[in-house]
């Protein structure tokens, strides 16, 4: 909710408390696909060790739906400085740079072996110090004690390069905690598995218009009028509550995992939080993003899609991308006709 909206409701407050400021109206509709954008990049497997081969698949979509375009793939091998709030080193957001190690330039999918120095550049390992020089600083882990190898995906829109980055979770152990903690972590930790959205359901009121199941083609495209408000629900599989109960192949839902809590200085087990990003080629979603927190056991998330902004009959493509807390990604799509 923007401050403008607040002040619109309470003009007196704007008068009295206006010193706090007014936010401008900017286009913040992340869900609206009005130009080609990479919505997600899925790595398979979701977590690997340096040197292992990983297959990447990008979801690229625009105002007409999914796009099949050429993507240039490269590993980014330059560490981000502490002074940068960015996800990757700025040198990697270029068409070419010594920091980039290209591994594919063909389609939406590519396969490459993770650089062998991933745990040294982006992980807890530090190179041996030179004489009279202090040791280097290890890379800080994220909140799940994870380390990531950045992967650049570049495509062009009207000859202008567009950059997206996938950060592949690499297993390097943990660089924090006591020796006992590290041993316990390595023993109990289970590599991440990508989540899947097992289905997407579209309701109009109480009426179920569509059920799309992952892995099956959408055979029927429902038609709705422009005044409709649709309830879109996505689901992901159930996962056991405890790590020890996980199947060997992992689970495509909100998995339990173990991480090192740097505040409590202890290993903690918890369920992955799940985030869902929503996209459409028309109408507007009530929320850009929804999700479930660690403590929520529900396996679904929903959003409202309003179609009253659509002025002509057309097909509207809907995408939902789910992300688990450890960097795993899954997505699903559906289409409806608006009259």
């Amino acid at each position, binding site marked *: 909710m923007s401050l403008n909206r*607040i002040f619109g*409701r*309470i003009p007196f*407050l704007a*008068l*009295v*408390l*206006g*010193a*706090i*400021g*007014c936010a*401008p109206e*900017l*286009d*913040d509709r*992340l869900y609206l696909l009005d130009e080609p954008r990479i919505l*997600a*990049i899925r790595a398979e497997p979701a977590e690997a060790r340096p040197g292992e081969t990983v297959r990447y698949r990008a979801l690229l979509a625009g105002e007409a739906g999914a796009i099949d375009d050429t993507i240039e793939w490269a590993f980014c091998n330059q*560490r*981000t*400085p*502490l*002074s*940068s*709030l*960015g*996800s*990757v*080193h*700025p040198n990697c*957001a270029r068409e070419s740079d010594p920091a980039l190690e290209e591994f594919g330039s063909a389609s939406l999918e590519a396969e490459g072996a993770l650089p062998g120095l991933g745990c040294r550049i982006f992980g807890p390992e530090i190179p041996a110090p030179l004489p009279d020089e*202090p*040791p*280097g*600083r*290890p890379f*800080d*882990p994220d*909140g799940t004690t994870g380390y990531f190898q950045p992967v650049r995906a570049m495509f062009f829109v009207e000859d202008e390069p*567009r950059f*997206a*980055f*996938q950060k592949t979770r690499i297993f390097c152990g943990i660089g924090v905690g*006591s020796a006992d*903690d590290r041993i316990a972590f390595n023993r109990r930790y289970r590599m991440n598995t990508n989540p899947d959205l097992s289905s997407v359901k579209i309701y109009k009121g109480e009426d179920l218009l569509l059920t799309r199941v992952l892995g099956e083609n959408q055979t029927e495209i429902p038609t709705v009028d422009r005044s409709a408000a649709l309830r879109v629900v996505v689901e992901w599989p159930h996962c056991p509550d405890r790590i020890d109960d996980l199947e060997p192949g992992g689970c495509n839902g909100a998995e339990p995992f173990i991480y090192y809590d*740097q505040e409590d*200085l202890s290993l903690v087990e918890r369920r992955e*939080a799940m985030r*869902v990003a929503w996209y459409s080629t028309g109408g507007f979603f*009530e*929320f850009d*993003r*929804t*999700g*479930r*927190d660690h403590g929520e056991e529900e396996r679904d998330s929903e959003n409202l899609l309003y179609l009253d902004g659509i002025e002509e009959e057309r097909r509207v493509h809907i995408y939902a*991308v789910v992300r688990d807390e450890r*960097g795993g*990604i899954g997505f699903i799509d559906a289409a409806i006709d608006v009259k």
Partner: protein
Amino acid sequence: MLTKKYQTPALLLVAATVLGAMIPALGAAQPTIEPPAILEFVAAEFPESERENSEGATVLLQIAISEEGEVVGIAILESAGEAFDRSAIEAVKQFRFSPAKRDGVPIPVRIEYAYDFVIHEEEIEITTATILGTVVDRNGGERVEGAVLELDDGTRVITDEEGRFAFEEIEPGARTITISGDFIRPVSATEEVVAGERLEVVYEVSLEEEDDEDDDLDFEFVVTAPRIRRQVVATEISATEGRRVPGTQGDVLKVVENLPGVARAAAGSSALVVWGAAPEDTRTYVDGIHIPRLYHDGGFRSVLHSDMVRSVELIPGGYAPPFGRGIGGIVRVRQRPLDEDGFHGSVSLDVIDAAASIRAKLGKKVHLAASFRRSHLDSVANLVSKDDVRDIIPIPRYYDGQLRLQYTLGENERLEIGGIASSDRIDRTVVNSDPALTSRDSRGMDFFRVYLRYEKQKEDLGTISFLQYYGQDRRSLLNRFGGVPTHIDNNSNIVGLRTSWSSKLHERVALEVGLDAEILSADLSRGGAVGAPPREGDARVFGQAPADRIGSDEWSALIASAGVYASVAINLWEDRLRILPGFRLEPYITRSSRAVPSAGDGPGAGTQRYDLAIEPRLSVLLKANDWLGFKAAIGRYHQPPAAEDLSAVFGTPTLGPARSAHYLLGANIRLMEKMNLELNGFYTYSDKLVWRSVAEQPFLAQALEQNAVGRSYGGQALLRIEKIGPFFGWLSYTLSRSERKDVPSLDWRRFDYDQTHNLTALGSFDLGKGFEAGFRVRYSTGYPRTPVIGSYYDATADLYQPIFGTRNSIRIPAFVSLDIRGAKSFKIGEYIRGEVFLEIQNLMNRRNPEELVYNPTYTQHDYISGFPILSVFGARAEW
């Protein structure tokens, strides 16, 4: 002593031409002629009307002298003007001559006589002295008109409307002056005056209430020595004046924002940026006690109740040796003297907060003062809004209080214990449909100080003072933005000791020596991203989520220093030239409990370093004449690292003090009796500044580096009208540039707080019958920002990240605002004085950009604007 005098000298030019009776004798046989000679000379008065414009004149006269030698006739042969002619005739009439003689027989004659009026300079011995002075009301600094000052020889003078008086040509030695008046009980002071010299004094008196009938109580007053102005560039505003400045809502200390050298802070910010220095580089003192902040969060209010304030002084740089540990400026708050009889107090209320204060005299020697203030802005917001606005908008909640107890030990000797406390809280949570994006912002800042102060003013007008204080600062920060939590807790204990002794070593030399020590012991914990919160120099945009790499640390730090200083004031050239050399020697100890990040459960090894700061300082003040003065200062300054920067994970435990050198040059021009123009130029250069490492693989425990340098330079002007009729005000303008080099080999870049132009014009009119009206106009350049020239998508975090252009190469547009203030004061009954006021800020309803913001994909940008039009009304009653 050589003094210019106007006199008619005994210079005679006698053209001993014998006329009349002498001429007929020329054709006879050679008689013996004896000319007349002056027996008695009378000097002519130099005409009063000609003193200013004439450098002298000559009158040529013809004088007729009888046989008896008397002057019997005078004629003007060559006039020098009526005044000179008349004066010459009057003098010559009184001349007596020996008669002229021919062959020994007296005869009448006529002679020509030239009388010269000349100005002579002669050396005369001055055996008297002069005392010039001003009588001011201690409570508020108003000048006292009508005060009667009586010298011990019975000479009486009365102060004029400016509170000024003068005793001229008085006998030197110890002279006692008694001050009395309608509202002043008779008190006296003894001054040592020297022949040929002029002593300037300021007497501070406390005025009685008109209806005070308690005549038995002692009435204390303080004689202050002529102020040895040690700060070359300083602007001091009295509480009375500060209250009336528009935009302050009656808060005296908020007037600092309007002084030259201070950059305009962004709306909702409490930062004080002085001469381009970082906010943390400027220190705030309350009668020598260092406090961590001047304003509450949001900048709505200062942390001290205005009733407890006598004046506030901003010293933007080049300050004197008693102060240190800061490479920026200094804000000095002087507390209100506790010397009033009876019971006084005030209550006030406005939309922001409510406050109360009391001042009371308990017995003959004890004074008590207390104040308390609490904000209710959050409650007002809830009352007038349907939503829980606090969850969206950072509305500060604060309180502050002061308690003072003063015991008068003797004349000009007092002991005081007291305390200052302040607390701030901000809590807000912005719920998002994605729990990971639910934002939480919780901040707190509490501090208190308790102190013991002893002060004695010596007979030679020197002082002895001792101040010891203890306090705690507690800062807490808990943020969760973009799914990355950040927390910082800093609990610090501070012990300060400040003692000084000053005395007059010689008629022209005064000395002050002292000790200024401070020990800070802090326990800290921090977790989250290294870059959160961001610090100066980080490339970022407003609202950008912190990096998702996190760390955690717990550490303790000790930062201690003891500054020993000496300062000499040398007055030369009839006090027109004042040279103030000084020196401060300050050893620092900096200790951190962890030299490297903790590894598991193992004990951490600490680190400690010693530094010695040698800080020479020099100020020179030259008063060229009554209306023009010059000043210059140079000084060296050090600032210890912040305890929060000594973390092995988030900072560098081995940081040492930063250094700075200040160079100032200025002039004071008195344009009119109450109109002064002050012009100052400044240059500061700092090195060993701390900044975030840009190394891709920094060394362990070196997240911060200490090799940045900075410089600020510019000029400022202050045209100040003290009070002309019903008006007072000032016009201040600062032109400055503040730059940094994060690495010496890089080019200079604009500092985050650089503000090129800053103009403030304000004034207040006393409209009579209790009505007041004021205005304030402000213009300031926007702060620099780093442009975003592109973006990339982090598909794992589902987040767009900016690609930056040249650091700080663009600016937020300029700020322009017109504020007005109206007030009406009135009496409620016999004892209570009330006031209501209304302030309207940004009267033009201009959309002032305050911050640059982007949409989530960084394809659009716009500005967060400050308040549209803001009305604040309030009421106050005092007795």
